[in-house]
Structures are given as C-alpha cells and as structure tokens.
C-alpha cells in the first residue's frame, strides 16, 4: 500500500504528463520528416533531461522513441520514404494504397495497429521485466560477464551489413570506452595528458556526434533534391476492416515482443517477420505488396511491438538492446541510476511510475497520431535547409551543456566526422555505441570475477547460469559464422552467373 502511494506520487507529477506529451509530439513530428530520425531526436533531447526529475526524463525519451516509431510510417506511406528502417516494410503496401487514393486508410490502420502493438508490448514489459530482474538477482560478476559477452556477440551477429564491419565498430567502441582513468589502479589510459579525457569520453557529445552530425554533413555534401509534398486523402478505417486485421495485429505484436526482448534484433526484423507471417496466413496472399490493408497492419504491429519489449533487457539486466535503449540507459546514468536487478530492489516505485507513464504514452500516441495525419503536410513541408541549421544548433548547445566546455563541442564534431566516415565505409554505428556502453561493464565484471575467484579462472564456469550464457554466446557466434558463410557462398554463386558483375 505504501509502495502504491509512492508510485502514484511519483507518477502524478504534472512534469511527467508534459514530458510524455511533448515526447510523443516531438517523436511523431521528427519521425514524419524525411531525413530526421527518432534516434537523432532522442540523442538531442538527452541534454534537456539534465534538470528534469528521473521519471519525467525517461518518459520524455520513451515518448520520442514511440512517437518516432509511428511517425516513420507516415512518410513511408505518403512519399515512399521510410522515416526509420523499421518502416521500410510498411511502404510495401502503404505506398500502393496511397497511390490508389487510400492514404488516410493506410495511415489510420498504421496508427491503430501501432497503438495496439505498443499496448501489448508495454504489458509484456511490465510482466517480464520484473520477473527477469528477480532471476537476475542471482547473478554475480561471472554471470554478468557472460551475459555481456552474449549481448555483444548477438548484437554483432544480428546487425545489418557486414559482420566484420560490425565487429570492428564494436571493438572501436570498446576501445574508446576505456579512455580515462582506470577504475581499479587509477592509471591513465590513452588520455595523452588531457585532463578533459581523464573522466572518460562524455557520452552525450559522442551520441549527438555519431547520430546527428553525419546527417547534416551528408545533406550539405549531396546535390539538392526537390522537396516532396504529399497529402493524406481518402476515407479512414471502418470497424469491420480493423476487426479483419486484428488477428494479424495481435500476432505481429507478439512477434515484436519476442524479437524486441532479444538484444540486437530490432524493429526492422520484427516488421518483416510479422508481414511475412500475415501474408502466409492470408486467404489472399497475392494482394500483399499491391495495397493490402492487412499488410500495413502487420508490419506496423511488428515494429511497434518491439518498442516496449526492448526495455525488458534494459530495465531488468541493464543491457541495451538497440541504439535508442542505449541512449535511455545514458539518461538513467545521468540521473545516478543504474538499470538492472538492483534498481528493482532499491527503486521499485520509480520503475512502476515509469511503467505507468509508458502505458499512458500509448494513449497519447493515439491522439497525437490522429492529429499528425491531419496536419502532416504542415510538418513535412518544412524544408531541410531550415531544419538542419536548427538541428546543428541543438547539437552544439546540447554538447556544450554537458560540462560547460567547448572541448565537448570539439568531441561532438570529431564523432560526427567519425560517424560520417562510418556511413561512407558501411561500418554500422549501432555496434560502436553498444560497444562503448558495454565495454566498461565487460571489463568491470571480468576484474570483479577474478577478484572474487582469487584469480582462479574456473569462476567463469561456476554454475548452470554461466554455462547457459556460455552456450548462448557460442550459439550466437556460430549463427554469425553461418550467416557469414552462406552470404559468401551466395555472393560467389551470383558472381558465377552469366551477366553478373560490371
């Protein structure tokens, strides 16, 4: 009873409601502007959370995340430009529907299925996070060491693009995370005598540089492309149409939940698996890809089903599953909180206040999404030539605000250039960020295990939990190797075909 009162006290603060509403509005707006991503918005919003209470800060970022997931589908449907990779699947049927004059129907279905999937995902988060955290209370340093090994390997093995590049990105992230004073011996590591680096590399300039600056550089490096305009026209979704797609929405949501709970898999995979499942079960699979309403519903349910579920490993184990949850982890740390089983023990009211806010964000998404459909043309008509100078301003001011030092602005620009080089060479930024976050945890748990075991390496195989995570780590490495070899064979086969190559 005492806990419930405390949860309500934490949750019912006006600041929380404002944070959720602002977050969802910003997320939908940014998501529906081609070229701006939810990741960029979450990164830029992080400095604003410094002065906020922890619950409001987390809810603001979660609101942007959820709004951005839906916002990405608006541009996918109307102008065939997915606002996020996860919305790529939505355009398969959404865009043909828009061409047939049924844009509003597609957008409404995308919204309703997103809200339902989001709600189911939140329920899963509330039930499973607490359960998993309870199990994780039995974990010691060796168990966490192997869990981090598993998280790193699964993120790399399932990441898009080349596995070698994913590994390189993660290694560079780990290496940069080690810059600063060593936590055990206090010796300097790669600081080059610079006092700004002694407290390690600041997370926020790295984040902003990596995810916002490359977009700006690319915009000014590319030839100007004509600004696309679109309108949401036609009729909305009838109840019978929604009911007809409900099974696909629920199945897609569950697929999203399962995939979201595994670190590294992401919303894109969930959307395509959900879409494939709906197509396979449909009595009219031939209509998919030509403007099938159920296709829009299934793909949106898949990608939004991930949103709540990705917070399961973050909150219960302290392991971020993707870039946005990695940023949210940063927000927790800024406020002196460390997600994981201990957080459930020591700050349970805070966790449940966040859960209530996350549930509320689904309802707010419904209203904001409806308004976004109506006023989309107003949002999307703002040219990037006006938007990007503002984005750059937020980048600079936000980085400076971390330590009130121009060094962080330099750092942000350096990471921006690095992010741009990553884009050009196809090295993914997500494993870099995950490596940067998991690197110190990896080293810390390794050292603690050695200290607990008095330098006896058998501590790393001390019980069934360690063996379980070792098996998962080996499994993910084998999966990565299998994917690498099959892709290599496919490439060789396509090279052997007549007419292949240039």
């Amino acid at each position: 009873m005492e806990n419930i009162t405390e949860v309500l006290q934490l949750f019912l603060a006006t600041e929380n409601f404002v944070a959720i509403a602002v977050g969802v509005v910003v997320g939908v707006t940014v998501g529906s502007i081609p070229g701006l991503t939810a990741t960029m918005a979450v990164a830029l919003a992080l400095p604003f959370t410094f002065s906020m209470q922890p619950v409001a800060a987390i809810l603001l970022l979660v609101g942007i995340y959820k709004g951005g997931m839906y916002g990405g589908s608006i541009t996918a449907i109307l102008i065939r430009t997915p606002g996020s990779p996860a919305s790529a699947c939505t355009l398969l049927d959404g865009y043909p529907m828009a061409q047939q004059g049924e844009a509003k129907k597609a957008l409404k279905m995308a919204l309703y299925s997103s809200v339902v999937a989001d709600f189911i995902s939140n329920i899963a988060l509330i039930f499973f996070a607490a359960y998993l955290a309870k199990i994780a209370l039995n974990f010691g340093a060796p168990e966490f060491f192997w869990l981090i090994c598993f998280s790193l390997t699964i993120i790399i093995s399932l990441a898009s693009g080349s596995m070698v590049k994913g590994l390189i990105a993660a290694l560079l992230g780990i290496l940069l995370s080690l810059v600063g004073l060593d936590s055990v011996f206090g010796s300097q590591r790669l600081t080059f005598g610079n006092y700004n680096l002694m407290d390690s590399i600041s997370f926020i300039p790295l984040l902003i540089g990596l995810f916002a600056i490359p977009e700006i550089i690319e915009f000014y490096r590319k030839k100007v492309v004509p600004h696309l305009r679109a309108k949401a026209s036609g009729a909305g979704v009838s109840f019978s149409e929604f009911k007809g797609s409900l099974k696909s929405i629920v199945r897609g949501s569950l697929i999203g939940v399962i995939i979201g709970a595994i670190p590294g898999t992401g919303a894109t995979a969930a959307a395509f698996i959900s879409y494939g499942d709906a197509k396979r079960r449909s009595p009219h699979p031939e209509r998919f890809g030509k403007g099938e309403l159920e296709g829009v519903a299934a793909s949106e349910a898949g990608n939004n089903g991930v949103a709540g579920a990705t917070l399961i490993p973050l909150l219960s184990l302290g392991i971020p599953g993707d870039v946005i949850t990695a940023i949210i982890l940063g927000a927790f740390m800024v406020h002196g909180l460390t997600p994981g089983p201990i957080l459930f023990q020591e700050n349970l009211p805070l966790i449940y206040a966040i859960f209530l806010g996350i549930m509320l964000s689904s309802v707010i998404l419904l209203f904001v999404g409806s308004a976004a459909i109506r006023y989309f043309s107003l949002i999307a008509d703002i040219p990037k030539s006006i938007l990007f100078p503002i984005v750059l301003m937020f980048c600079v001011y936000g980085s400076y605000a971390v330590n009130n030092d121009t060094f962080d602005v330099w750092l942000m620009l350096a990471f921006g250039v690095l992010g741009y080089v990553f884009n050009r060479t196809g090295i993914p930024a997500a494993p870099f960020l995950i490596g940067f976050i998991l690197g110190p945890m990896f080293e810390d748990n390794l050292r603690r295990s050695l200290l607990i075991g008095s330098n006896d390496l058998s501590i790393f195989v001390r019980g069934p939990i360690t063996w379980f995570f070792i098996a998962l780590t080996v499994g993910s490495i084998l999966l990565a190797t299998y994917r690498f070899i099959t892709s290599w064979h496919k490439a060789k086969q396509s090279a052997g075909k007549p007419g292949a190559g240039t």
Partner: protein
Amino acid sequence: MMKFHSTGGALIKDPWDVVAGVVLLGFSLLLLFHLVPNYIGQPPIMQNPMMSPRWLPTIVGWLLLMFSVMMIIQGLLVADDAEDSGRRFERGPWLRFALMALSLVVYVGLFEMLGAVISGILATLILFIAHPVRTWWIYGLAIVFPVGVTLLFTGVMNVPLPMLPF
C-alpha cells in the same frame, strides 16, 4: 543481413573497404606497439595479467588487427552493394560543403568568445547561404532561432550557456 555482391573483372572490388581496412590495420599496429605501451600506465606488481589496465586494450588491438585484415580481403574479393547501402550519391557543389564546414568552425571557434546567440546567428546565416535559401524573410529566422533556442536552454531547461560576449 550480410550483403555481398561479388563481381568479376576489377582487381579491387570495393576500394572503400580496402582503404578503411588499411587505415584500421595501421591504427591497430599503432595501438599495439606505441599507444598501449606508452600511454597506458601499469602498476609494477600484479597477481593476474588479466587485471592489467593494458589487458583489454591489447586484446582489442589484436582483434582489430585481425578484422582489418579480413576487411581488406573482403574489399579485394567482394563488391559493395552500393545501391542498397546508399554509400554512393551525387555530390553537390563544393562551396555548399565548404560553407557548412565554416559554420562548424564558427561554432567551435567562437562559441565561448561571442556567446551562444551571436555564434548561432552567424552559423545559421552561413548555412542558409550555403543551401542557398532564396526567400529573404527566412534569413530573419537566423536571428529568431538562436535567440529562441538559447532561451529554451537557459530559461526553461536551466542549462547554462554563454549568452553574449558582454
């Protein structure tokens, strides 16, 4: 998904991968044989080498070396699926890019000296000229936005920024 698109003919299938691999190879060698020994302090006595501050950077260095070699091999044998990855694009005029770079220099070089408002106005004006924005009234936004965003940071969010040079 790993995407390989092997093509016959050219000696190097993906020059970007080869260049990036060579740079990374050089960096890993620099890390292993110069940076780790000279820029990472180590206590004189340690019970286990795995406890050393140099242990993880060394492991990372050797793995980087291994994977950079693999990246070079990949670049020599496998072509980039450029259309999918979006790594190639049509370049705009160099002046546009140079002005964008200048706006970055204005921010980092003059931010503390001129304050957030004036450096913001200057950088935004440069970016509008870089595009170029042809509607005259939009240039007024180059004043409105920096003032608005600075007030948002300092007034609403209580984030301290150097406002003005005086």
